[in-house]
């Protein structure tokens, strides 16, 4: 298996860095597959459901979790499938490709496109609000919320993990080439969080 370096140099090998009570981690490599197809096409839906063992989410801006998989709504006909087991990449991809590839749909391996920065901490929303135009209370209001938005100028996908009244935990999906920039800005933003 390929030994991939993380995009953020100070966060290699699952290291967790803490700045002013906010913990940062860059998650190890994960399989990411972009799936597009018509949500009204029964054949497409049933083939996808069979491989993934669950129903593709049609509600906007949510994700569902099943085993090591997360299936994220990206658009009315577009999903991102994330498999924590980066090692099984070929396996999941070929399964999807075999059952859906010949239909009027697309399966694209986008694993190398984005990396995931995980941040945790009580004042997380306060930190994020410094850099986002997004209304976090509306857009990340449940433990299955995702939101695609701009972080300063960088396209990001935010994924909420924590339950209500638990310590906030958010994954930020960002292009690998932008990861260091996003990380540095976030760390800089932790400097005056204690007001």
């Amino acid at each position, binding site marked *: 298996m390929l030994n991939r370096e993380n995009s953020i140099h100070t966060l290699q090998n699952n290291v967790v860095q803490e700045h002013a009570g906010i913990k940062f981690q860059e998650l190890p490599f994960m399989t990411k597959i972009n799936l597009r197809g018509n949500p009204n096409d029964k054949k497409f839906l049933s083939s996808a459901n069979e491989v993934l063992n669950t129903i593709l989410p049609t509600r906007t801006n949510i994700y569902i979790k099943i085993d090591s998989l997360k299936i994220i709504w990206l*658009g009315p006909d577009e999903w991102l499938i994330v498999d924590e087991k980066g090692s099984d990449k070929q396996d999941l991809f070929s399964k999807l490709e075999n059952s859906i590839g010949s239909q009027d749909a697309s399966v694209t391996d986008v694993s190398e496109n984005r990396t995931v920065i995980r941040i945790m901490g009580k004042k997380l929303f306060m930190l994020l609000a410094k850099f986002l*135009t997004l209304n976090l209370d509306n857009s990340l209001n449940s433990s299955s919320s995702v939101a695609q938005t701009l972080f300063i100028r960088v396209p990001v996908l935010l994924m909420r993990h924590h339950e209500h009244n638990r310590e906030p935990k958010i994954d930020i999906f960002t292009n690998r080439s932008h990861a260091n920039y996003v990380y540095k800005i976030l760390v800089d933003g932790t400097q005056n969080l204690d007001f």
Partner: protein
Amino acid sequence: MFLIKCPYCGERDQSEFNCGGEAHIVRPKNPPDLTDDQWADYLFMRKNIKGIQFERWNHSNGCRRWFNVTRNTATDEILKIYNMGEQPPIVTGIAPKTPSGETSIGSGNISTSYTKK
């Protein structure tokens, strides 16, 4: 800056969107039959109204979907958001608001009697 209510994602900042120009421009069925003037008219000529304008917008940094917007270009007030392929809402007779409340004279009048060529 203003907020746009994406049909899928809800209210988001304008910076997440891109405007795709005037909506409801139909591609001519037989381009070879057109004169250069007619073809250029289809390709390049767009209305730039002070008042109510129909536009295509794309939520490019969100769900990346297209939709139509009826916007008052003088105030950025959005009157209606509707799907691609739908007919534009009827706005004839609506006097578009102006930023300081002055009467919508001059070019503003064009939009009150908006008709497609």
